[in-house]
């Protein structure tokens, strides 16, 4: 007879693992991957491939030669970071800038803190914001969407994002209605489906929502952060819009344009950098929603999702210690 194992209880374990969670997120990103390839062609595939390979490579190099520890590149987390980084940049970004972004994401954003689970900030967003600040021109020249096999403009033509159009127009003294009436404005349906300029992964709200539904069904994410994030953003922007619809964008457009849906479901919900308790997650989402609209309306950038999430990431430890779950038997009201 072989030796028996002796270990503490419990002796059974759930099927879910870090790997299954990470690959679940990858599966959830597939619709958005298809949409980005559909509208930006092989350029999109190129950016994603470079970003993913660079992220995996840097994680491998750092783990093997700098840390000299176990290599965990097959746990799916570097793959998720790679795809998310690609989702957050324009499809015409030069390869060397993508690789730089991957190095910052993995090297500084993740490995310098001790790897998966230890990073205070979402690694893909660290890389993205680094690139945005370092290479503002390349990072904000957005190719116009051109459906595969369809008629359209040539690859080389770029244009502003939906939020960029608003920012420019409002700064020039136009009203929201005038801006939305201009022929180059994409409109609600195009913004929903993805036919707008922007970062590769953020353009199609519908594809991202499809992925979100998958993540909910697999219990990879919970409703707390998305609902409080979107709820706060809609209420805040809604109040502004009700006060002055000529100068403030309506809440639906806020949701469909820019990176809100991508940020809400795929980056704010990053487990590592968001609070652990459900109460804390509600606070986190509300803060990110508030900051996103603040930056979009009054900030220097047309878009505020990345900054909002990173700022709230910084608050996560504080939120964790301030918002504890309700303890059993703590508040006693028996009846």
């Amino acid at each position, binding site marked *: 007879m072989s030796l*028996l194992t002796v270990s503490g*209880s419990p*002796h059974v374990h759930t099927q879910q*693992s870090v790997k299954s969670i990470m690959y679940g997120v990858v599966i959830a990103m597939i619709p958005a991957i298809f949409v980005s390839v559909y509208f930006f062609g092989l350029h999109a595939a190129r950016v994603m491939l470079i970003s993913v390979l660079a992220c995996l490579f840097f994680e491998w190099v750092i783990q093997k030669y700098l840390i000299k520890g176990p290599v965990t590149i097959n746990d799916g987390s570097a793959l998720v970071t790679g795809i998310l980084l690609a989702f957050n940049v324009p499809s015409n970004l030069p390869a060397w800038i993508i690789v730089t972004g991957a190095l910052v994401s993995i090297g500084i954003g993740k490995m310098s803190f*001790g790897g998966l689970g230890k990073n205070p900030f979402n690694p893909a967003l660290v890389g993205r914001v680094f690139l945005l600040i370092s290479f503002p021109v390349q990072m904000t020249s957005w190719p116009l969407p051109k459906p595969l096999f369809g008629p359209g403009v040539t690859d080389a033509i770029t244009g502003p994002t939906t939020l960029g159009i608003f920012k420019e127009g409002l700064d020039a003294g136009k009203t929201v209605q005038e801006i939305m009436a201009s022929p180059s404005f994409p409109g609600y349906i195009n913004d929903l489906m993805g036919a707008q300029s922007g970062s590769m992964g953020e353009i199609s709200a519908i594809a991202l929502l499809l992925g979100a539904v998958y993540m909910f069904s697999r219990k990879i994410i919970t409703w707390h952060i998305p609902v409080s994030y979107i709820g706060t953003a809609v209420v805040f922007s809604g109040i502004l819009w009700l006060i002055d619809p000529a100068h403030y964008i309506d809440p639906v457009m806020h949701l469909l344009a820019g990176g809100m849906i991508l940020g809400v479901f795929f980056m704010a919900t990053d487990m590592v950098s968001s609070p*652990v308790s459900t109460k804390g997650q509600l606070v986190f989402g509300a803060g990110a929603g508030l900051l996103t609209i603040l930056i979009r309306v009054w900030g220097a950038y047309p878009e505020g999702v990345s900054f909002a999430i990173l700022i709230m990431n910084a608050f996560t430890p504080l939120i964790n210690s301030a918002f504890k*779950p309700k303890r059993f*038997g703590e508040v006693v009201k*028996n*009846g």
Partner: protein
Amino acid sequence: MKTFKLGGVHPEENKISAGKAIEVLPLPEKVYIPVSQSLGAPSTVVVEKGAAIRVGQLIAKGESFISSNVHSSVSGKVTKIDDVIDASGYKRKAVFIDVEGDEWEEGIDRTRDIIREVTMDRDEIIKRINEKGVVGLGGATFPSHVKLMVPDGRKAEYLLINGVECEPYLTSDHRLMLERGEEMLIGVRILMKALGVDKAFIGIENNKPDAIRYLSGLSAGFKGIEIIPLKVKYPQGGEKQLIKAVVNREVPSGKLPIEVGCVVNNVGTALAVYEAVQKNKPLVDRIVTVTGKTVAKPCNLLVRIGTPVGLLIEHAGGLPENAGKVISGGPMMGKALTSLDAPVVKGTSGILIMDGVEAKRTAQQNCIRCGRCITVCPMGLEPYLLAQLSEHQLYERAEKEKIMDCIECGSCHFTCPAGRPLLDYLRLGKNKTGIIIRNRVKR
């Protein structure tokens, strides 16, 4: 369907032996009866080496307030009083007996005739339960008579009977409810009388519809006893969770159920109480499930206390070739045995055999702060944080974060996607924090 609100998980139920009627395990040749089989102070041995002994004879006497008597489960000769390694892996003092025949003490009614009328008064009942060594058979083995002595200033309103059996695999309580239902209900009536309550609830998880139906029918003849079906959710059978589910009261942190007017007993305890009070029978046997996916004949056995676990496994078809772990209890809270000679004790509800693959823990990774351990914790704790504090020996902070409230249900470790042994750290932390608290109280 009623259940507790906070946390909980749903492991695979695997109630393989649910359909197997209780069999009487043939008498063993030797038994090792640990002399301390309950929470509290150790009991004092009152027999000597070489003594001839009969079934039901007192062999160790509980002399403190929280301690309990232990009786011989067999007749024969005491060969020695020595240490035995029990299910917890520790050495415990035990009385070793070579079995000869099956001679019972005078005055024990061994028939299955059901005695329905309860003639004893409150004090007599409590005295008898104490005398006969009845302890909580749900696993915690708290001396039953102590639970029945309600402290001054407190009043028992409800008796809760735990027929939940939320541990996967285990079916001993299920079979007991089906086969010994009426005797168990008389036991409940005795407990109600001892506590002076007129309402008792028997909580049963909804995966035992036959037991719910059967007992609901029977309980029509028992005034004040109500059967409460409960949603299948682990740890529904935790004392505090059961109270929350059935009467919607929360036992305050660090307090006992009596604080909210409740006393909780297991269905097995109710049966033992019936046997002690109505049949004058000490607690010398209990029902044990022997099960596992690879076990040839999963079964429910009536076993004499002190029988080596190995004999139960033999009866169930022997230890499977690929056995990787033998657990005393269920997969969520049971203890992995270090030896198959470990004796069955009053708290042994089942023997679970896992194969080599199941027995292995998953590899451990960094905590990804997903918060699932918090979501599933039935006590509203933050297991990831408590494990960290315990790892870094920050016990004072762990105490503030309520580490002592942990009921060790294992839901956190069960659910952790990074495979972190959270409960290992929490147990360690509880142990160390408990020492600090006790030293503070002493000073």
